[in-house]
């Protein structure tokens, strides 16, 4: 059985001031196997974040449903950990307290929490920063904390919405390796939304390419590159071949998006 099943999920936003309703997402079907690392690749505005938010339970689908382990998603829950593009660490909590947040909400005793928190802080390489406030951390460190915070709940699936989108290129590369390394060691079902083609290929066992708005699935590409992956993989011929193919796919969609906008923008 699939870990996550998306059945005919679509999303239409009500028209602004009596205008036409906007179709953001055409009905999408997707089955995600357990421990798969799926990246959803698409031009901006294609509804890929909307799809992720529906799986998270932060938005309701207009039609269809998402099922996790056979149970329909109706609201957000700790079984679906999420990392956002914006920095969403709680600024009044230290790194360790942020990581412990979900465990505390669950009512876990402090003693039990401490060990888990330490191991997740260590996992994302933030040992020594436990007592820092988020504002004292770089963007990359904040996102690492956010990943540790989501993982500490031991969710059934990890949802990431362009988590490295606000980071500079070098940091982004390091973060990709860090997250992939964690996945290679711990295995977890991951749904990762991005508009970066290289990132989508490098991370994924399967890339879902989406069309321009209203979004639907354009292609479904298995990435059979060996693990563990090293950043040098990005310069290999196999990688380049995949990149060329996906670039072509995405380019067509990006152009459709661009043409849909008024001239001069």
């Amino acid at each position, binding site marked *: 059985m699939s870990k996550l099943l998306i059945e005919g999920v679509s999303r239409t936003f009500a028209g602004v001031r009596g205008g036409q309703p906007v179709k953001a997402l055409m009905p999408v079907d997707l089955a995600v196997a357990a421990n798969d690392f799926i990246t959803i690749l698409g031009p901006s505005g294609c509804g890929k974040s909307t799809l992720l938010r529906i799986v*998270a*339970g*932060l938005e309701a689908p207009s039609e269809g449903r998402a099922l996790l382990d056979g149970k329909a998603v109706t*609201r*957000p*829950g*700790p079984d*679906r*950990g*999420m990392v*956002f593009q*914006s920095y*969403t660490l*709680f*600024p*009044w*909590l230290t790194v360790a307290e942020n990581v412990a*947040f*979900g465990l*505390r*909400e*669950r009512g876990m005793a402090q003693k039990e929490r401490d060990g888990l928190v330490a191991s997740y802080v260590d996992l994302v390489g933030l040992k020594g920063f436990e007592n820092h*406030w*988020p*504002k004292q951390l770089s963007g990359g460190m904040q996102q690492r904390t*956010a990943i540790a*915070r*989501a993982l500490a*709940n031991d969710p059934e699936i990890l*949802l990431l919405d362009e988590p490295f989108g606000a980071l500079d290129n070098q940091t982004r590369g390091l973060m990709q390796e860090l997250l992939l390394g964690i996945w290679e060691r711990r295995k977890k079902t991951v749904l990762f939304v991005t508009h970066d083609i290289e990132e989508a290929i490098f991370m994924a066992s399967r890339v879902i390419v989406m069309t321009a708005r209203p979004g639907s699935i354009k292609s479904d590409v298995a990435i059979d590159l060996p693990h563990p992956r090293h950043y040098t993989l990005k310069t290999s011929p196999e990688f380049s071949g995949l990149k060329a193919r996906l670039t072509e796919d995405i380019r067509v969609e990006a152009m459709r998006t661009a043409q849909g906008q008024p001239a001069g923008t």
Partner: protein
Amino acid sequence: MRPLHPVSPGLRTVLGISFFVLFVAFWAWITLGGHVNRIFLADPLSMLRDGWRLLVEDRFWLDILITIWRVFGGFVLASVVAVPIGIAMGAWKPVEAFLEPFVSFARYLPASAFIPLLILWAGIGELEKLLVIFVGSVFQIILIVAVKVGSTRRDLVEAASTLGSTNNGIVKRVIMPANAPEIAETLRLVLGWAWTYVIVAELIGSSSGIGYMIINSQSRLATGQIIFGIIVIGLIGLLSDFAFKAFNRWLFPWSLA
């Protein structure tokens, strides 16, 4: 001068002090130089003399203490009532829809106009003074807190809900801590306004306090005492503001830039 260009700390201090010096110098010039009638405006030196006599002979410090007590009493009363209501309004939209129109209306009711009514209800004792400050502050605090809470970062709330927070958990462990520094800032602001209300309350039907001393001095044309009283209010206001600021900084180290 280049717009928005920062000024050095040394120059800032010098400039800040020099206005006080200029102000007092101008005051001394028009009073000591005989440009205004001494009956209407005392000069700085006799103001200080009058102030000293007030403190030493007339036990004015008792009036100061009683005024401080009234301000803080009324202010604490208003805060204890207003902050929870403001949080409830900001967090739960039906509560806001229920209370917001009335509170917006009540906010424009001038506290000073309630004084005759409050005297009828509560007499001219301490309770009436506290109530004037309460009426003047409570609606302001409710509204500002509700607006701050209502604009809590949505992504933090969403993050908490994906981490398993319940509705109550979100209010208690996200909305409240996220807004605590801003609420404290609001209280600091309103405390400044409370000083205005207390003096108004003491001008009418009172037998103690800084405001009472001021209205009492007016009948004796003791302008030096009046000015001394006003300056004392300003100084206490400034000190409590500094203390409040320092307290907030100590309480919320994470919110510092």
